[in-house]
């Protein structure tokens, strides 16, 4: 039998194995430290998911409006944009002749007039309650030129014709909530402008749209003139949606200057709306980020404390290791690996929790504020998780430096004596 000792090419593996076994020594303490790291990482991952998810949701929701530019009544443009994204009250209307004035502008590629009204809904799934429904009066050909992706659910109908005043098309969420099929009736109470009593309308469902993941899912569509008539605003519009032939900052500025001459009108670029909405939420994100950073710092201090305690408890052992041949670098590597193992385990566990808990996080965030977009606003991607794990490794690298240096600097004679 050959009993000669041979060079080992897997020393790193041996050190990792040794680090694991050392951490097992104080299981509760190690588990608590890993939990601390996990909690901090879960917060960081959720924040990352929120930043990415919200930006994606804003971009998606605004892109799915189909316009580049909106012309609307003067007021807060962002409130108006939010209204278009998710509905609401406090609607303002364009003067009746705005459409005629604007539609022949040579810079416009396409234009669609939209009337938005809020109806009181009765006969819902919960009969005892009354709900509000957003009604969009639209001109179908121009509206579809902006949103060519709108399709009906399989075998679920057609668009209404302008001559059919009592026909409606339902967004998928409305249809599901109301349990309506094509051919069913849809009842709504609409208070005409200038009146105090609502008028009951029995409308006919002629189509149900496939899910688009946008505000359209929660909207009831009517012919433009029918909607305006029902709300007793026969010549008014809420929004003109536009696409320009050439859309860039310069053409947008020129277009805006051109139509600012209309006294009651404002021109809003949806790109500006995107930027502003994102920057508004960035404040909240910054606050959450600050909390996440504090959590990470606390977790790191916990890691450093745990490893330092572990180093001091093992003073004698470290002395023996040095006596039996461990170099400074070997001890440094061992302690540093223990820190890294804690941070990596914590980051993986935190990422898993964040991944599976993203639904809860989204609910919690939505309960704090109205973010004005449909679809998921917390999007935890493999990229976010990857960055979190990489970040934890980097933090683990730095957190491990001091304890590892302390351990590596121990002199064997003193260590063995102190550890006795």
């Amino acid at each position: 039998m050959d009993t000669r000792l041979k060079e080992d090419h897997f020393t790193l593996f041996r050190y990792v194995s040794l680090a694991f076994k050392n951490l097992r020594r104080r299981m509760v303490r190690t588990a608590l430290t890993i939990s601390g790291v996990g909690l901090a990482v879960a917060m960081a991952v959720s924040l990352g998911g929120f930043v990415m998810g919200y930006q994606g949701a804003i971009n998606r929701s605004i892109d799915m409006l189909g316009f580049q530019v909106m012309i609307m009544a003067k007021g807060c443009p962002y409130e108006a944009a939010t209204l278009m994204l998710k509905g609401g009250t406090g609607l303002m209307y364009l003067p009746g002749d705005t459409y005629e004035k604007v539609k022949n502008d040579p810079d416009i590629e396409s234009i669609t007039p939209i009337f938005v009204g809020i109806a009181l809904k009765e006969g819902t799934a919960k009969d005892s309650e009354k709900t509000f429904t957003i009604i969009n009066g639209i001109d179908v050909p121009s509206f579809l030129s902006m949103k060519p992706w709108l399709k009906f659910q399989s075998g679920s109908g057609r668009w209404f014709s302008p001559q059919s005043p009592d026909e409606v098309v339902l967004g998928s969420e409305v249809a599901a909530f109301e349990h309506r099929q094509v051919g069913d009736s849809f009842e709504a109470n609409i208070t005409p402008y200038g009146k105090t009593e609502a008028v009951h309308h029995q409308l006919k469902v002629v189509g149900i749209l496939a899910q688009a993941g946008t505000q359209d899912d929660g909207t009831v569509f009517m012919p433009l003139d029918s909607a305006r008539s029902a709300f007793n605003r026969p010549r008014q519009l809420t929004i003109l949606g536009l696409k320009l032939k050439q859309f860039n900052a310069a053409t947008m500025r020129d277009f805006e200057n051109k139509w600012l001459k209309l006294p009651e009108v404002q021109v809003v670029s949806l790109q500006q709306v995107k930027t502003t909405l994102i920057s508004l939420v960035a404040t909240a994100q910054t606050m959450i980020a600050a909390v996440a950073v504090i959590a990470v710092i606390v977790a790191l201090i916990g890691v450093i404390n745990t490893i330092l305690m572990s180093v001091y408890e093992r003073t004698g052992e470290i002395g023996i290791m040095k006596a039996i041949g461990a170099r400074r670098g070997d001890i440094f590597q061992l302690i540093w690996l223990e820190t890294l193992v804690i941070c990596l385990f914590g980051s993986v566990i935190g990422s898993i929790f964040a991944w599976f808990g993203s639904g809860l996080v989204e609910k919690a965030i939505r309960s704090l504020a109205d973010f004005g977009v449909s679809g998921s606003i917390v999007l935890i991607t493999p990229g976010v998780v990857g960055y979190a794990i990489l970040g934890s490794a980097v933090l683990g690298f730095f957190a491990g430096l001091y304890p590892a240096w302390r351990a590596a600097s121990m002199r064997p004679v003193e260590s063995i004596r102190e550890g006795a």
Partner: protein
Amino acid sequence: MKTPLIEARGLKRHYHRGSETVKALDGVDFSIHSGEMVSVLGPSGSGKTTLINLLSCLDAPTEGTMTVAGKSVTGLSEDQLVEVRRGVLGFVFQQFHLLPTLTVMENVELPLTFLGLKPHPQRTKEVLKLVGLLDRASHLPKELSGGQMQRVAIARALMIEPKILVADEPTGNLDKATGESIFGLFKELTQKGLAIIITTHNMAFGYEADRVVTLEDGRILKEEKRA
């Protein structure tokens, strides 16, 4: 005449405690050859542990010269002393300092990790057989008696095939019978060519060595060669 494995001349180790200089060791000559067991005796504070730390390159002398396995270690830094120790010196201490989460076998193989050598189960078993613990290979330290733990520490020291075994109070925590068996094992090892330096308070054990060096106040009081 054979070259000694360790040869030290005029070793001094002085410490500063405030304005006071403590002469823990004050001019000691020492040598040991292969297959020889030397015990260092003396009362507490006589300099036994200081001497053994210097001889085993765990500490550097304030003055004096020393060669270990033919290499001069005079003036070497702590990092350079590690390189001298690696593979040449094995250690056994009064406190065993076994890693509690490693099995007996893993504890014995630990020095190989630090020397960048592959685990060698067959050799580990041979070493464990030598110290009489082959049947405890998969046990954890907490499942062993004090004597068994000291044997594991001896096996750990022997695993790297050292030329010199340094044992500082190896029987300090053991009962008489266990201490005798450890000394019996040391004698066997010297017959295989291992040089052993031992410090002990136990005169009976100490006088079982080939040579006995007695220290007092950091100096050699007497040196006796046993038959």
